[in-house]
Protein backbone atom coordinates (compact mmCIF):
# COMPACT_ATOMS: atom_id res chain seq x y z
CA UNK A 1 0.00 0.00 0.00
CA UNK A 2 3.05 2.22 0.32
CA UNK A 3 3.48 2.16 -3.42
CA UNK A 4 -0.14 3.05 -3.87
CA UNK A 5 -0.04 6.32 -1.95
CA UNK A 6 3.24 7.26 -3.63
CA UNK A 7 1.74 7.02 -7.04
CA UNK A 8 -1.27 9.06 -5.98
CA UNK A 9 1.13 11.88 -5.27
CA UNK A 10 2.97 11.59 -8.56
CA UNK A 11 -0.38 11.53 -10.30
CA UNK A 12 -0.75 15.27 -9.80
CA UNK A 13 1.88 16.06 -12.41
CA UNK A 14 0.48 13.39 -14.74
CA UNK A 15 -1.49 14.22 -17.79
CA UNK A 16 -5.19 14.75 -17.18
CA UNK A 17 -7.75 13.19 -19.50
CA UNK A 18 -5.62 10.47 -21.11
CA UNK A 19 -8.95 8.81 -21.90
CA UNK A 20 -11.92 11.01 -22.68
CA UNK A 21 -15.28 9.56 -23.56
CA UNK A 22 -17.88 12.14 -24.51
CA UNK A 23 -21.61 11.42 -25.02
CA UNK A 24 -20.80 8.07 -26.55
CA UNK A 25 -23.55 5.82 -27.90
CA UNK A 26 -23.41 2.38 -29.41
CA UNK A 27 -25.98 0.16 -31.03
CA UNK A 28 -25.93 -3.50 -32.03
CA UNK A 29 -28.38 -3.32 -34.90
CA UNK A 30 -31.42 -1.71 -33.27
CA UNK A 31 -30.30 -2.61 -29.76
CA UNK A 32 -29.04 0.44 -27.87
CA UNK A 33 -26.19 -1.12 -25.82
CA UNK A 34 -24.38 1.99 -24.59
CA UNK A 35 -26.29 5.15 -23.80
CA UNK A 36 -24.65 8.54 -23.51
CA UNK A 37 -21.49 7.50 -21.69
CA UNK A 38 -19.17 10.18 -20.34
CA UNK A 39 -15.88 9.45 -18.65
CA UNK A 40 -12.55 11.15 -18.21
CA UNK A 41 -9.62 9.17 -16.89
CA UNK A 42 -6.36 10.83 -15.87
CA UNK A 43 -3.01 9.22 -16.33
CA UNK A 44 -2.22 6.90 -13.42
CA UNK A 45 -5.84 6.60 -12.40
CA UNK A 46 -7.32 3.19 -11.60
CA UNK A 47 -10.95 2.69 -12.49
CA UNK A 48 -13.04 -0.35 -11.63
CA UNK A 49 -16.24 -0.94 -13.59
CA UNK A 50 -18.89 -3.23 -12.21
CA UNK A 51 -22.51 -3.98 -12.93
CA UNK A 52 -24.91 -6.80 -13.69
CA UNK A 53 -24.38 -9.19 -16.57
CA UNK A 54 -25.34 -7.74 -19.93
CA UNK A 55 -25.06 -4.16 -18.74
CA UNK A 56 -22.50 -3.32 -21.41
CA UNK A 57 -19.27 -3.28 -19.37
CA UNK A 58 -17.31 -5.38 -21.85
CA UNK A 59 -18.70 -3.49 -24.80
CA UNK A 60 -17.67 -0.21 -23.18
CA UNK A 61 -14.04 -1.04 -22.53
CA UNK A 62 -13.75 -2.78 -25.91
CA UNK A 63 -14.75 0.51 -27.50
CA UNK A 64 -11.73 2.15 -25.91
CA UNK A 65 -9.32 0.18 -28.12
CA UNK A 66 -11.81 -0.07 -30.95
CA UNK A 67 -12.46 -3.78 -30.76
CA UNK A 68 -16.01 -2.45 -31.00
CA UNK A 69 -17.06 0.56 -32.99
CA UNK A 70 -19.14 3.34 -31.47
CA UNK A 71 -21.69 5.18 -33.56
CA UNK A 72 -22.08 8.51 -31.83
CA UNK A 73 -20.03 10.74 -29.56
CA UNK A 74 -16.28 10.86 -29.12
CA UNK A 75 -13.58 8.65 -27.69
CA UNK A 76 -10.18 10.28 -27.38
CA UNK A 77 -7.25 8.20 -26.16
CA UNK A 78 -3.91 9.89 -25.56
CA UNK A 79 -4.98 12.83 -27.74
CA UNK A 80 -5.96 10.59 -30.65
CA UNK A 81 -9.61 10.44 -31.56
CA UNK A 82 -10.91 7.01 -32.54
CA UNK A 83 -12.46 7.23 -35.98
CA UNK A 84 -12.53 4.98 -39.01
CA UNK A 85 -8.96 6.04 -39.73
CA UNK A 86 -6.86 2.89 -39.49
CA UNK A 87 -3.73 4.84 -38.53
CA UNK A 88 -5.53 6.32 -35.52
CA UNK A 89 -6.77 2.90 -34.49
CA UNK A 90 -3.29 1.40 -34.81
CA UNK A 91 -1.65 4.17 -32.81
CA UNK A 92 -4.24 3.85 -30.02
CA UNK A 93 -3.84 0.08 -29.91
CA UNK A 94 -0.10 0.47 -29.51
CA UNK A 95 -0.68 2.47 -26.32
CA UNK A 96 -3.51 0.38 -24.88
CA UNK A 97 -2.95 -3.14 -23.58
CA UNK A 98 -5.85 -5.48 -23.05
CA UNK A 99 -6.36 -8.58 -20.92
CA UNK A 100 -9.31 -10.83 -21.70
CA UNK A 101 -11.48 -13.06 -19.58
CA UNK A 102 -10.38 -16.14 -21.55
CA UNK A 103 -6.69 -15.12 -21.83
CA UNK A 104 -6.63 -15.47 -25.65
CA UNK A 105 -2.99 -16.47 -25.72
CA UNK A 106 -1.71 -17.74 -29.06
CA UNK A 107 -1.56 -21.52 -28.58
CA UNK A 108 0.93 -22.13 -31.42
CA UNK A 109 3.59 -19.90 -29.85
CA UNK A 110 5.58 -20.37 -26.66
CA UNK A 111 5.05 -18.04 -23.73
CA UNK A 112 8.13 -16.04 -24.70
CA UNK A 113 7.07 -15.84 -28.35
CA UNK A 114 3.61 -14.70 -27.29
CA UNK A 115 5.24 -11.87 -25.41
CA UNK A 116 7.70 -10.90 -28.13
CA UNK A 117 5.37 -11.05 -31.12
CA UNK A 118 4.07 -7.53 -31.00
CA UNK A 119 7.25 -5.79 -29.81
CA UNK A 120 9.13 -7.38 -32.73
CA UNK A 121 6.55 -6.87 -35.46
CA UNK A 122 4.87 -3.65 -34.37
CA UNK A 123 7.51 -1.83 -32.33
CA UNK A 124 10.26 -3.27 -34.57
CA UNK A 125 12.53 -4.13 -31.67
CA UNK A 126 15.45 -6.46 -32.40
CA UNK A 127 14.59 -9.99 -31.27
CA UNK A 128 17.23 -10.07 -28.55
CA UNK A 129 16.04 -6.84 -27.00
CA UNK A 130 12.41 -7.92 -27.17
CA UNK A 131 13.22 -11.21 -25.48
CA UNK A 132 15.18 -9.54 -22.71
CA UNK A 133 12.30 -7.16 -22.05
CA UNK A 134 9.79 -10.01 -22.17
CA UNK A 135 11.80 -11.96 -19.61
CA UNK A 136 11.69 -8.95 -17.30
CA UNK A 137 7.92 -8.81 -17.50
CA UNK A 138 7.63 -12.56 -17.05
CA UNK A 139 9.67 -12.18 -13.90
CA UNK A 140 7.40 -9.41 -12.79
CA UNK A 141 4.37 -11.72 -13.12
CA UNK A 142 6.48 -14.43 -11.44
CA UNK A 143 6.66 -17.06 -14.15
CA UNK A 144 10.05 -16.63 -15.87
CA UNK A 145 10.58 -20.40 -15.62
CA UNK A 146 7.63 -21.09 -17.92
CA UNK A 147 8.97 -19.01 -20.82
CA UNK A 148 9.69 -21.94 -23.11
CA UNK A 149 6.37 -23.69 -22.55
CA UNK A 150 3.26 -23.49 -24.69
CA UNK A 151 0.11 -21.89 -23.26
CA UNK A 152 -1.69 -25.24 -23.38
CA UNK A 153 0.76 -26.56 -20.78
CA UNK A 154 -0.01 -23.88 -18.18
CA UNK A 155 -2.71 -23.51 -15.55
CA UNK A 156 -5.39 -20.85 -15.97
CA UNK A 157 -3.78 -18.51 -13.48
CA UNK A 158 -0.40 -18.85 -15.16
CA UNK A 159 -1.96 -18.23 -18.56
CA UNK A 160 -3.64 -15.07 -17.36
CA UNK A 161 -0.36 -13.81 -15.92
CA UNK A 162 1.31 -14.49 -19.26
CA UNK A 163 -1.48 -12.55 -20.93
CA UNK A 164 -0.78 -9.61 -18.61
CA UNK A 165 2.95 -9.83 -19.36
CA UNK A 166 2.21 -9.99 -23.09
CA UNK A 167 0.18 -6.80 -22.91
CA UNK A 168 2.84 -5.08 -20.79
CA UNK A 169 5.57 -5.96 -23.30
CA UNK A 170 4.15 -3.32 -25.62
CA UNK A 171 4.88 -0.78 -22.85
CA UNK A 172 1.33 0.54 -22.99
CA UNK A 173 0.24 3.71 -21.24
CA UNK A 174 -3.14 2.21 -20.43
CA UNK A 175 -4.24 -1.28 -19.45
CA UNK A 176 -7.77 -2.60 -19.92
CA UNK A 177 -8.93 -5.69 -18.05
CA UNK A 178 -12.17 -7.46 -18.92
CA UNK A 179 -13.06 -9.74 -16.01
CA UNK A 180 -9.52 -11.15 -15.82
CA UNK A 181 -10.30 -13.51 -12.95
CA UNK A 182 -13.79 -14.75 -13.67
CA UNK A 183 -12.67 -17.76 -15.70
CA UNK A 184 -10.31 -18.88 -12.94
CA UNK A 185 -10.60 -21.31 -10.07
CA UNK A 186 -10.66 -19.58 -6.67
CA UNK A 187 -7.11 -20.60 -5.73
CA UNK A 188 -5.74 -18.99 -8.88
CA UNK A 189 -7.62 -15.72 -8.54
CA UNK A 190 -5.26 -14.43 -5.89
CA UNK A 191 -2.09 -14.93 -7.94
CA UNK A 192 -3.59 -12.85 -10.76
CA UNK A 193 -4.96 -10.18 -8.45
CA UNK A 194 -1.56 -9.87 -6.77
CA UNK A 195 0.00 -9.11 -10.12
CA UNK A 196 -2.68 -6.54 -10.87
CA UNK A 197 -2.27 -4.89 -7.48
CA UNK A 198 1.47 -4.66 -8.04
CA UNK A 199 0.81 -3.13 -11.46
CA UNK A 200 -1.60 -0.62 -9.97
CA UNK A 201 1.08 0.34 -7.49
CA UNK A 202 3.50 1.14 -10.30
CA UNK A 203 1.30 3.97 -11.53
CA UNK A 204 -0.23 2.31 -14.58
CA UNK A 205 -3.48 3.76 -15.85
CA UNK A 206 -5.98 0.93 -15.50
CA UNK A 207 -9.59 0.31 -16.35
CA UNK A 208 -10.78 -2.94 -14.92
CA UNK A 209 -14.10 -4.69 -15.28
CA UNK A 210 -14.35 -7.00 -12.30
CA UNK A 211 -16.58 -8.29 -9.57
CA UNK A 212 -13.66 -8.64 -7.15
CA UNK A 213 -14.82 -6.06 -4.65
CA UNK A 214 -11.78 -6.58 -2.47
CA UNK A 215 -9.60 -5.56 -5.38
CA UNK A 216 -11.79 -2.53 -6.04
CA UNK A 217 -11.49 -1.41 -2.43
CA UNK A 218 -7.72 -1.87 -2.40
CA UNK A 219 -6.63 -0.20 -5.61
CA UNK A 220 -9.44 1.72 -7.29
CA UNK A 221 -9.46 5.49 -7.36
CA UNK A 222 -13.03 5.41 -8.64
CA UNK A 223 -15.67 2.71 -8.98
CA UNK A 224 -18.15 2.98 -11.81
CA UNK A 225 -21.45 1.14 -11.72
CA UNK A 226 -23.14 0.40 -15.04
CA UNK A 227 -26.62 -0.91 -15.67
CA UNK A 228 -28.54 -1.25 -18.93
CA UNK A 229 -25.90 0.57 -20.90
CA UNK A 230 -25.72 3.60 -18.63
CA UNK A 231 -23.25 4.82 -16.05
CA UNK A 232 -25.46 4.86 -13.00
CA UNK A 233 -23.03 5.85 -10.31
CA UNK A 234 -19.41 6.88 -10.04
CA UNK A 235 -17.63 7.30 -6.72
CA UNK A 236 -14.41 6.59 -4.78
CA UNK A 237 -14.53 3.05 -3.38
CA UNK A 238 -15.04 3.97 0.25
CA UNK A 239 -18.05 6.05 -0.61
CA UNK A 240 -19.27 3.59 -3.25
CA UNK A 241 -19.37 0.64 -0.89
CA UNK A 242 -20.38 2.31 2.36
CA UNK A 243 -22.80 4.84 1.03
CA UNK A 244 -24.19 4.12 -2.45
CA UNK A 245 -26.63 6.77 -3.62
CA UNK A 246 -28.64 5.07 -6.35
CA UNK A 247 -31.18 2.35 -5.56
CA UNK A 248 -29.92 0.22 -8.45
CA UNK A 249 -26.40 0.33 -7.00
CA UNK A 250 -27.67 -0.57 -3.58
CA UNK A 251 -29.56 -3.57 -4.97
CA UNK A 252 -26.53 -4.74 -6.94
CA UNK A 253 -24.21 -4.41 -3.95
CA UNK A 254 -26.62 -6.30 -1.75
CA UNK A 255 -26.71 -9.17 -4.24
CA UNK A 256 -23.00 -9.31 -4.80
CA UNK A 257 -21.94 -8.96 -1.17
CA UNK A 258 -24.27 -11.73 -0.08
CA UNK A 259 -21.87 -14.44 -1.19
Amino acid sequence: MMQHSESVETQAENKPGIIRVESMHKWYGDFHVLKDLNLAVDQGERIVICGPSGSGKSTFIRCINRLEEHQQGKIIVDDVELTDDVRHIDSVRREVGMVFQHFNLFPHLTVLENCCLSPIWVRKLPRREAEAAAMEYLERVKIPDQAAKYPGQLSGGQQQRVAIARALCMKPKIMLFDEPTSALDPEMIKEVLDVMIELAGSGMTMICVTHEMGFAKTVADRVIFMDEGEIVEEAPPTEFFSNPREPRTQKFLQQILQH
Partner: protein
Amino acid sequence: MTESTIKPPKKNLGPVKWMRTHLFSSWYNSLLTLVVGYLLLTSVGPLVSWVFLDATFEGSGPGDCLGEGACWLFVSQRLNFFIYGFYPDELQWRVDIMFGLLALAFVPQFIEGFPARKWLGIFGMSGLPIIGYVLIPGGILGLEEVESSKWGGLMLTLILAYIGILASLPIGILLAIGRRSDMPIIRGLCVVFIEVWRAVPLITVLFMASVMLPLFLPEGVSFEKLVRALIGITLWQSAYMAEVIRGGLQAIPRGQYEAANALGLGYWRKMGLVILPQALKLVIPGIVNTFISLFKDTTLVLIIGLFDILGAVQSTIADPAWQNVAIEGYVFVAFCFWVFCFGISRYSQNLERKLDTGHKT
Protein backbone atom coordinates in the same frame (compact mmCIF):
# COMPACT_ATOMS: atom_id res chain seq x y z
CA MET B 1 5.79 -47.55 -0.46
CA THR B 2 7.53 -50.43 -2.19
CA GLU B 3 8.71 -50.48 -5.76
CA SER B 4 6.06 -52.92 -6.88
CA THR B 5 3.16 -50.66 -5.96
CA ILE B 6 4.36 -48.00 -8.38
CA LYS B 7 4.82 -50.11 -11.48
CA PRO B 8 1.81 -50.44 -13.77
CA PRO B 9 0.44 -53.97 -14.07
CA LYS B 10 2.03 -55.98 -16.85
CA LYS B 11 -0.16 -56.55 -19.85
CA ASN B 12 2.06 -59.03 -21.61
CA LEU B 13 -0.03 -62.01 -22.68
CA GLY B 14 1.60 -65.15 -24.06
CA PRO B 15 0.94 -66.01 -27.71
CA VAL B 16 -1.73 -68.54 -26.86
CA LYS B 17 -3.54 -66.18 -24.56
CA TRP B 18 -3.17 -63.36 -27.07
CA MET B 19 -4.78 -65.46 -29.74
CA ARG B 20 -7.56 -66.45 -27.43
CA THR B 21 -8.45 -62.87 -26.54
CA HIS B 22 -7.94 -61.36 -29.98
CA LEU B 23 -8.85 -64.06 -32.47
CA PHE B 24 -11.04 -66.66 -30.76
CA SER B 25 -12.89 -64.74 -28.07
CA SER B 26 -16.33 -65.98 -29.19
CA TRP B 27 -17.81 -68.43 -31.69
CA TYR B 28 -18.38 -65.79 -34.40
CA ASN B 29 -14.91 -64.31 -33.89
CA SER B 30 -13.45 -67.80 -34.29
CA LEU B 31 -15.45 -68.33 -37.45
CA LEU B 32 -14.35 -64.98 -38.82
CA THR B 33 -10.73 -65.78 -38.02
CA LEU B 34 -10.95 -69.11 -39.84
CA VAL B 35 -12.64 -67.64 -42.91
CA VAL B 36 -10.22 -64.74 -43.17
CA GLY B 37 -7.29 -67.09 -42.58
CA TYR B 38 -8.47 -69.38 -45.37
CA LEU B 39 -8.88 -66.44 -47.79
CA LEU B 40 -5.43 -65.12 -46.93
CA LEU B 41 -3.80 -68.51 -47.41
CA THR B 42 -5.47 -69.13 -50.77
CA SER B 43 -4.83 -65.64 -52.14
CA VAL B 44 -1.44 -64.67 -50.75
CA GLY B 45 0.26 -67.83 -52.02
CA PRO B 46 -0.61 -67.38 -55.69
CA LEU B 47 0.04 -63.64 -55.43
CA VAL B 48 3.54 -64.17 -54.07
CA SER B 49 4.36 -66.71 -56.76
CA TRP B 50 2.99 -64.41 -59.47
CA VAL B 51 4.90 -61.38 -58.21
CA PHE B 52 8.14 -63.09 -57.20
CA LEU B 53 8.56 -66.85 -57.55
CA ASP B 54 7.29 -67.46 -61.08
CA ALA B 55 8.08 -64.00 -62.35
CA THR B 56 10.60 -63.18 -65.04
CA PHE B 57 13.09 -60.49 -64.06
CA GLU B 58 15.90 -60.98 -66.53
CA GLY B 59 16.21 -61.48 -70.23
CA SER B 60 16.72 -59.55 -73.40
CA GLY B 61 13.29 -59.25 -74.98
CA PRO B 62 9.62 -60.20 -75.02
CA GLY B 63 10.49 -63.76 -75.93
CA ASP B 64 12.05 -64.42 -72.53
CA CYS B 65 8.77 -64.00 -70.66
CA LEU B 66 7.67 -67.64 -70.73
CA GLY B 67 6.86 -68.38 -67.09
CA GLU B 68 3.46 -68.36 -65.44
CA GLY B 69 4.32 -65.33 -63.33
CA ALA B 70 4.62 -61.62 -63.94
CA CYS B 71 6.78 -60.34 -66.75
CA TRP B 72 8.76 -57.62 -64.95
CA LEU B 73 11.13 -57.70 -67.87
CA PHE B 74 8.58 -55.54 -69.62
CA VAL B 75 8.89 -52.87 -66.95
CA SER B 76 12.66 -52.98 -66.72
CA GLN B 77 13.15 -52.90 -70.48
CA ARG B 78 10.87 -49.91 -70.97
CA LEU B 79 11.76 -48.21 -67.70
CA ASN B 80 13.59 -45.45 -69.47
CA PHE B 81 10.44 -44.51 -71.35
CA PHE B 82 8.25 -44.80 -68.24
CA ILE B 83 10.47 -42.39 -66.37
CA TYR B 84 11.60 -39.88 -68.96
CA GLY B 85 9.13 -40.16 -71.85
CA PHE B 86 10.82 -38.96 -75.03
CA TYR B 87 13.45 -36.92 -73.20
CA PRO B 88 16.68 -37.48 -75.15
CA ASP B 89 18.91 -40.17 -73.59
CA GLU B 90 22.07 -38.09 -73.55
CA LEU B 91 20.33 -35.25 -71.67
CA GLN B 92 18.61 -37.37 -69.06
CA TRP B 93 21.26 -36.49 -66.50
CA ARG B 94 19.45 -33.17 -66.14
CA VAL B 95 16.32 -34.96 -65.02
CA ASP B 96 18.39 -37.24 -62.80
CA ILE B 97 19.81 -34.20 -61.02
CA MET B 98 16.26 -33.06 -60.31
CA PHE B 99 15.29 -36.48 -58.96
CA GLY B 100 18.38 -36.36 -56.77
CA LEU B 101 17.59 -32.90 -55.46
CA LEU B 102 14.00 -33.92 -54.81
CA ALA B 103 15.20 -36.84 -52.75
CA LEU B 104 17.76 -34.64 -50.99
CA ALA B 105 15.08 -32.15 -50.03
CA PHE B 106 12.37 -34.51 -48.87
CA VAL B 107 13.83 -37.85 -47.79
CA PRO B 108 15.57 -36.23 -44.76
CA GLN B 109 12.13 -35.04 -43.61
CA PHE B 110 11.43 -38.61 -42.55
CA ILE B 111 14.65 -38.97 -40.59
CA GLU B 112 14.44 -37.63 -37.06
CA GLY B 113 17.31 -35.31 -36.24
CA PHE B 114 18.79 -35.11 -39.76
CA PRO B 115 21.02 -32.02 -39.85
CA ALA B 116 19.48 -28.92 -41.42
CA ARG B 117 16.41 -30.77 -42.57
CA LYS B 118 14.26 -27.70 -42.17
CA TRP B 119 16.48 -25.82 -44.60
CA LEU B 120 16.46 -28.72 -47.01
CA GLY B 121 12.66 -28.63 -46.92
CA ILE B 122 12.65 -24.90 -47.58
CA PHE B 123 15.08 -25.45 -50.43
CA GLY B 124 12.68 -28.04 -51.83
CA MET B 125 9.98 -25.42 -52.04
CA SER B 126 12.03 -22.52 -53.32
CA GLY B 127 15.38 -23.37 -54.89
CA LEU B 128 14.33 -26.70 -56.33
CA PRO B 129 11.58 -25.41 -58.63
CA ILE B 130 13.87 -22.63 -59.86
CA ILE B 131 16.67 -25.05 -60.71
CA GLY B 132 14.14 -27.30 -62.39
CA TYR B 133 12.79 -24.39 -64.39
CA VAL B 134 16.27 -23.84 -65.84
CA LEU B 135 17.52 -27.39 -66.10
CA ILE B 136 14.64 -29.37 -67.54
CA PRO B 137 13.57 -27.24 -70.51
CA GLY B 138 17.11 -25.93 -71.09
CA GLY B 139 17.58 -23.39 -73.88
CA ILE B 140 19.60 -21.06 -71.66
CA LEU B 141 23.05 -21.14 -70.04
CA GLY B 142 24.30 -23.24 -72.93
CA LEU B 143 21.90 -26.07 -72.14
CA GLU B 144 20.38 -27.70 -75.15
CA GLU B 145 16.65 -27.07 -75.39
CA VAL B 146 14.22 -29.94 -74.87
CA GLU B 147 10.67 -29.11 -75.93
CA SER B 148 7.99 -29.91 -73.41
CA SER B 149 6.27 -32.18 -75.93
CA LYS B 150 9.16 -34.60 -75.36
CA TRP B 151 8.72 -34.72 -71.60
CA GLY B 152 6.83 -37.67 -70.29
CA GLY B 153 6.50 -40.53 -67.89
CA LEU B 154 7.08 -40.26 -64.16
CA MET B 155 9.02 -37.06 -64.69
CA LEU B 156 5.99 -35.35 -66.21
CA THR B 157 3.70 -36.66 -63.48
CA LEU B 158 6.00 -35.23 -60.83
CA ILE B 159 6.30 -31.88 -62.60
CA LEU B 160 2.54 -31.54 -62.89
CA ALA B 161 1.87 -32.58 -59.33
CA TYR B 162 4.72 -30.61 -57.81
CA ILE B 163 3.94 -27.32 -59.51
CA GLY B 164 0.22 -27.84 -59.01
CA ILE B 165 0.71 -28.39 -55.29
CA LEU B 166 3.25 -25.63 -54.80
CA ALA B 167 1.26 -22.98 -56.66
CA SER B 168 -2.20 -23.87 -55.48
CA LEU B 169 -1.40 -23.55 -51.77
CA PRO B 170 -0.61 -19.81 -51.73
CA ILE B 171 -3.39 -19.02 -54.20
CA GLY B 172 -5.79 -21.07 -52.11
CA ILE B 173 -4.74 -19.20 -48.96
CA LEU B 174 -5.36 -15.84 -50.60
CA LEU B 175 -8.73 -16.99 -51.92
CA ALA B 176 -9.77 -18.29 -48.51
CA ILE B 177 -8.77 -15.05 -46.81
CA GLY B 178 -10.51 -13.08 -49.54
CA ARG B 179 -13.69 -15.04 -49.11
CA ARG B 180 -13.81 -14.03 -45.45
CA SER B 181 -12.88 -10.42 -46.12
CA ASP B 182 -15.08 -7.53 -45.00
CA MET B 183 -14.75 -5.91 -48.40
CA PRO B 184 -17.73 -6.96 -50.52
CA ILE B 185 -15.99 -6.66 -53.89
CA ILE B 186 -13.03 -8.82 -52.90
CA ARG B 187 -15.29 -11.32 -51.18
CA GLY B 188 -17.57 -11.47 -54.22
CA LEU B 189 -14.70 -12.05 -56.62
CA CYS B 190 -13.30 -14.84 -54.49
CA VAL B 191 -16.67 -16.53 -54.11
CA VAL B 192 -17.27 -16.44 -57.85
CA PHE B 193 -13.79 -17.74 -58.63
CA ILE B 194 -14.04 -20.59 -56.15
CA GLU B 195 -17.55 -21.64 -57.06
CA VAL B 196 -16.91 -21.55 -60.81
CA TRP B 197 -13.69 -23.58 -60.72
CA ARG B 198 -14.93 -26.03 -58.18
CA ALA B 199 -18.05 -26.78 -60.17
CA VAL B 200 -16.12 -27.84 -63.28
CA PRO B 201 -14.63 -31.34 -63.63
CA LEU B 202 -10.87 -31.38 -64.12
CA ILE B 203 -11.26 -33.12 -67.47
CA THR B 204 -13.28 -30.18 -68.71
CA VAL B 205 -10.71 -27.73 -67.38
CA LEU B 206 -7.91 -29.56 -69.17
CA PHE B 207 -9.90 -29.79 -72.34
CA MET B 208 -10.73 -26.09 -72.24
CA ALA B 209 -7.09 -25.29 -71.54
CA SER B 210 -5.83 -27.28 -74.48
CA VAL B 211 -8.54 -26.77 -77.09
CA MET B 212 -10.58 -23.69 -76.25
CA LEU B 213 -8.00 -21.36 -74.68
CA PRO B 214 -5.94 -20.94 -77.87
CA LEU B 215 -9.09 -19.79 -79.67
CA PHE B 216 -9.61 -16.95 -77.19
CA LEU B 217 -6.00 -15.79 -77.03
CA PRO B 218 -5.02 -12.95 -79.35
CA GLU B 219 -3.07 -13.75 -82.50
CA GLY B 220 0.58 -14.51 -81.83
CA VAL B 221 0.17 -15.21 -78.13
CA SER B 222 0.45 -18.86 -77.37
CA PHE B 223 1.55 -21.04 -74.51
CA GLU B 224 2.77 -24.55 -74.75
CA LYS B 225 0.20 -27.19 -74.06
CA LEU B 226 1.95 -28.21 -70.84
CA VAL B 227 1.88 -24.66 -69.48
CA ARG B 228 -1.81 -24.37 -70.30
CA ALA B 229 -2.53 -27.65 -68.56
CA LEU B 230 -0.51 -26.50 -65.54
CA ILE B 231 -2.41 -23.23 -65.30
CA GLY B 232 -5.70 -25.13 -65.52
CA ILE B 233 -4.70 -27.66 -62.88
CA THR B 234 -3.37 -24.98 -60.53
CA LEU B 235 -6.43 -22.75 -60.67
CA TRP B 236 -8.77 -25.71 -60.33
CA GLN B 237 -6.80 -27.04 -57.41
CA SER B 238 -6.57 -23.68 -55.65
CA ALA B 239 -10.35 -23.45 -55.54
CA TYR B 240 -10.44 -26.71 -53.61
CA MET B 241 -7.54 -25.64 -51.44
CA ALA B 242 -9.31 -22.38 -50.61
CA GLU B 243 -12.32 -24.22 -49.23
CA VAL B 244 -10.19 -26.53 -47.13
CA ILE B 245 -8.30 -23.58 -45.67
CA ARG B 246 -11.49 -21.60 -45.10
CA GLY B 247 -12.63 -24.46 -42.90
CA GLY B 248 -9.52 -23.94 -40.79
CA LEU B 249 -9.99 -20.17 -40.64
CA GLN B 250 -13.53 -20.61 -39.40
CA ALA B 251 -12.37 -22.88 -36.60
CA ILE B 252 -10.15 -20.20 -35.06
CA PRO B 253 -11.94 -18.60 -32.10
CA ARG B 254 -12.84 -14.92 -32.25
CA GLY B 255 -10.65 -14.26 -29.22
CA GLN B 256 -7.55 -14.93 -31.30
CA TYR B 257 -8.49 -12.20 -33.76
CA GLU B 258 -9.30 -9.85 -30.89
CA ALA B 259 -6.05 -10.50 -29.06
CA ALA B 260 -4.08 -9.87 -32.24
CA ASN B 261 -6.05 -6.68 -32.87
CA ALA B 262 -5.56 -5.50 -29.31
CA LEU B 263 -1.80 -5.97 -29.72
CA GLY B 264 -1.96 -3.67 -32.74
CA LEU B 265 -0.68 -6.28 -35.17
CA GLY B 266 -2.64 -4.98 -38.17
CA TYR B 267 -4.50 -7.10 -40.72
CA TRP B 268 -1.72 -8.90 -42.60
CA ARG B 269 0.45 -9.57 -39.56
CA LYS B 270 -2.58 -10.81 -37.69
CA MET B 271 -3.38 -13.23 -40.50
CA GLY B 272 0.20 -14.25 -41.20
CA LEU B 273 1.49 -14.62 -37.64
CA VAL B 274 -1.54 -15.61 -35.60
CA ILE B 275 -4.48 -16.88 -37.62
CA LEU B 276 -2.99 -18.73 -40.60
CA PRO B 277 -0.38 -20.76 -38.70
CA GLN B 278 -3.15 -22.13 -36.50
CA ALA B 279 -5.69 -22.55 -39.28
CA LEU B 280 -3.25 -24.34 -41.59
CA LYS B 281 -2.15 -26.63 -38.81
CA LEU B 282 -5.74 -27.59 -38.16
CA VAL B 283 -6.41 -28.53 -41.76
CA ILE B 284 -3.17 -30.36 -42.58
CA PRO B 285 -5.10 -33.62 -43.09
CA GLY B 286 -7.49 -31.87 -45.48
CA ILE B 287 -4.67 -30.16 -47.36
CA VAL B 288 -2.77 -33.41 -47.73
CA ASN B 289 -5.90 -35.16 -48.88
CA THR B 290 -6.26 -32.56 -51.61
CA PHE B 291 -2.59 -32.94 -52.56
CA ILE B 292 -2.93 -36.68 -52.89
CA SER B 293 -6.01 -36.47 -55.04
CA LEU B 294 -4.30 -33.88 -57.23
CA PHE B 295 -1.32 -36.19 -57.57
CA LYS B 296 -3.54 -38.90 -58.94
CA ASP B 297 -5.72 -36.55 -60.99
CA THR B 298 -2.68 -35.52 -63.02
CA THR B 299 -3.20 -38.76 -64.96
CA LEU B 300 -6.09 -37.01 -66.70
CA VAL B 301 -3.64 -35.03 -68.83
CA LEU B 302 -3.68 -38.16 -70.98
CA ILE B 303 -6.78 -36.87 -72.73
CA ILE B 304 -5.00 -33.80 -74.03
CA GLY B 305 -2.13 -35.87 -75.36
CA LEU B 306 0.46 -35.49 -72.61
CA PHE B 307 2.22 -38.73 -71.73
CA ASP B 308 2.46 -38.94 -67.98
CA ILE B 309 3.49 -42.22 -66.40
CA LEU B 310 0.11 -43.81 -66.95
CA GLY B 311 0.02 -42.63 -70.55
CA ALA B 312 3.53 -43.91 -71.16
CA VAL B 313 2.72 -47.33 -69.76
CA GLN B 314 -0.57 -47.53 -71.58
CA SER B 315 0.95 -46.74 -74.94
CA THR B 316 3.60 -49.41 -74.40
CA ILE B 317 1.05 -52.03 -73.48
CA ALA B 318 -0.48 -51.50 -76.88
CA ASP B 319 2.87 -52.31 -78.49
CA PRO B 320 2.38 -55.61 -80.39
CA ALA B 321 5.92 -56.72 -79.50
CA TRP B 322 4.79 -57.28 -75.92
CA GLN B 323 1.86 -59.58 -75.31
CA ASN B 324 -0.32 -59.72 -72.21
CA VAL B 325 1.66 -57.30 -70.11
CA ALA B 326 -1.25 -55.03 -69.20
CA ILE B 327 -1.44 -56.25 -65.59
CA GLU B 328 2.28 -55.79 -65.01
CA GLY B 329 2.07 -52.29 -66.45
CA TYR B 330 -0.83 -51.19 -64.30
CA VAL B 331 0.61 -52.80 -61.18
CA PHE B 332 3.80 -50.85 -61.80
CA VAL B 333 1.90 -47.57 -62.20
CA ALA B 334 -0.16 -48.29 -59.11
CA PHE B 335 3.01 -49.02 -57.16
CA CYS B 336 4.65 -45.75 -58.25
CA PHE B 337 1.59 -43.74 -57.25
CA TRP B 338 1.34 -45.56 -53.96
CA VAL B 339 4.97 -44.82 -53.08
CA PHE B 340 4.56 -41.09 -53.60
CA CYS B 341 1.11 -40.76 -52.06
CA PHE B 342 2.12 -42.81 -49.04
CA GLY B 343 5.22 -40.63 -48.71
CA ILE B 344 3.11 -37.47 -48.75
CA SER B 345 0.81 -38.94 -46.16
CA ARG B 346 3.62 -39.98 -43.84
CA TYR B 347 5.24 -36.59 -44.19
CA SER B 348 2.05 -34.86 -43.13
CA GLN B 349 1.74 -37.09 -40.08
CA ASN B 350 5.28 -36.16 -39.08
CA LEU B 351 4.40 -32.52 -39.52
CA GLU B 352 1.25 -32.80 -37.43
CA ARG B 353 3.13 -34.42 -34.61
CA LYS B 354 5.88 -31.84 -34.74
CA LEU B 355 3.46 -28.92 -34.72
CA ASP B 356 1.37 -30.26 -31.88
CA THR B 357 1.65 -27.76 -29.03
CA GLY B 358 -0.86 -29.22 -26.61
CA HIS B 359 -4.54 -28.49 -26.31
CA LYS B 360 -5.99 -25.26 -27.50
CA THR B 361 -6.74 -22.40 -25.14
